[in-house]
């Protein structure tokens, strides 16, 4: 009997209420992920979430799948071992912008280059939420944070551009406002073999919002909504306008063979030709 699965198969309801602030989009992202898993009908025990450390890195506390909560910035490195240790698993690396791109930037670019079969789901709230709102490598230039009280002097990474440059098979950007699109991208990323990235532009009214966006949670959500534009519209913008926005949509979708396929192929050719005699 093929009963459609519910997000509740993956979501740990008894852990409610969530620890996150009012208006924090992490819960929305969590719902999108668990909904996507339900849509794909992947049994929870075939899923491992590998989280980083940060507000979003607390997501594993609310998941009923297998979970790994490691060290800051290393979700992909732990995830690489998890995946190679049992290639049948669906490994989801849930990372903040700090996790994925500051301290974890190296694992990110190498995972993409290797095309390891992991889905990275990045909550980009433009700041280190957990530690009190310092600037991150995605904080937009000149925005204020606790460590850039007059504005940050560093330009931000284009997370998706970086993933693409390094070779990810699937790269998409959405926001916690665009919830159905977000779920769709996550589902597509999980289904695709190889390294896949979904960047979810997220709200952090408490830190990023407080210092940069006059108003409340809704204003913060409005910012996220207005910041993002679909590809079709984005492409028609001039450079100046582009610089003020983030394009959303499926930005990369290809089928390079993933690391383990290549590894197995290369090594099997060899063992046929007589080496690797060990049983």
């Amino acid at each position, binding site marked *: 009997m093929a009963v459609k699965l519910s997000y509740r198969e993956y979501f740990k309801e008894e852990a409610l209420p*969530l620890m996150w602030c009012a*208006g924090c989009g992490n*819960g929305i992202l969590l719902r999108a992920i668990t909904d996507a898993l339900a849509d794909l009908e992947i049994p929870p025990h075939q899923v491992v979430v590998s989280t980083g450390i940060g507000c979003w890195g607390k997501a594993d506390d609310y998941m009923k799948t297998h979970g790994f909560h490691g060290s800051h910035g290393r979700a992909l490195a732990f995830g690489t071992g998890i995946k190679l240790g049992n290639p049948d698993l669906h490994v989801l690396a849930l990372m903040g912008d700090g996790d994925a791109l500051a301290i974890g930037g190296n694992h990110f670019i190498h995972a993409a280059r290797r095309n390891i079969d992991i889905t990275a789901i990045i909550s980009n709230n433009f700041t280190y939420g957990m530690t009190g709102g310092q600037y991150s490598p995605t904080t937009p230039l000149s925005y204020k944070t606790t460590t850039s009280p007059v504005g940050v002097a560093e330009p931000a990474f284009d997370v998706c551009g970086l993933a693409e440059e390094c070779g990810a098979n699937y790269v998409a950007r959405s926001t*916690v406002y665009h919830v159905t699109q977000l779920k769709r991208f996550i589902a597509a990323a999980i289904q695709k073999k190889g390294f896949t990235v979904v960047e979810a532009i997220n709200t952090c009214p408490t830190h990023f919002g407080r210092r940069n966006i006059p108003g409340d949670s*809704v204003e913060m959500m409005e910012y996220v909504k207005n910041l993002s534009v679909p590809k079709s519209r984005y492409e028609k913008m001039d450079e100046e306008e582009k610089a003020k926005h983030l394009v959303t949509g499926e930005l990369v979708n290809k089928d390079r063979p993933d690391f383990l396929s290549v590894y197995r192929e290369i090594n099997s050719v060899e063992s046929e030709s007589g080496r690797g005699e060990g049983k």
Partner: protein
Amino acid sequence: MTKTGEDKDVTIHIDEALCKRCGFCIEYCNKKVYEADKDGMPLVKNPEECTNCRLCELRCPDFAIRVEVVNNE
């Protein structure tokens, strides 16, 4: 703890204990189904307008809303 706006085939449950008064459901329901009480808590004011799009449920960051279709079984 659950407020229910019942009409036609849709029931909307809001878990007051979970709701953190972010206002997303109120702001983003196209049908203006919700209204804020003085504390910021959403009240189901116009349940008859609800189209069961469930976006409010999906956008509630605190899993506080459940939109249920009742008569559809």
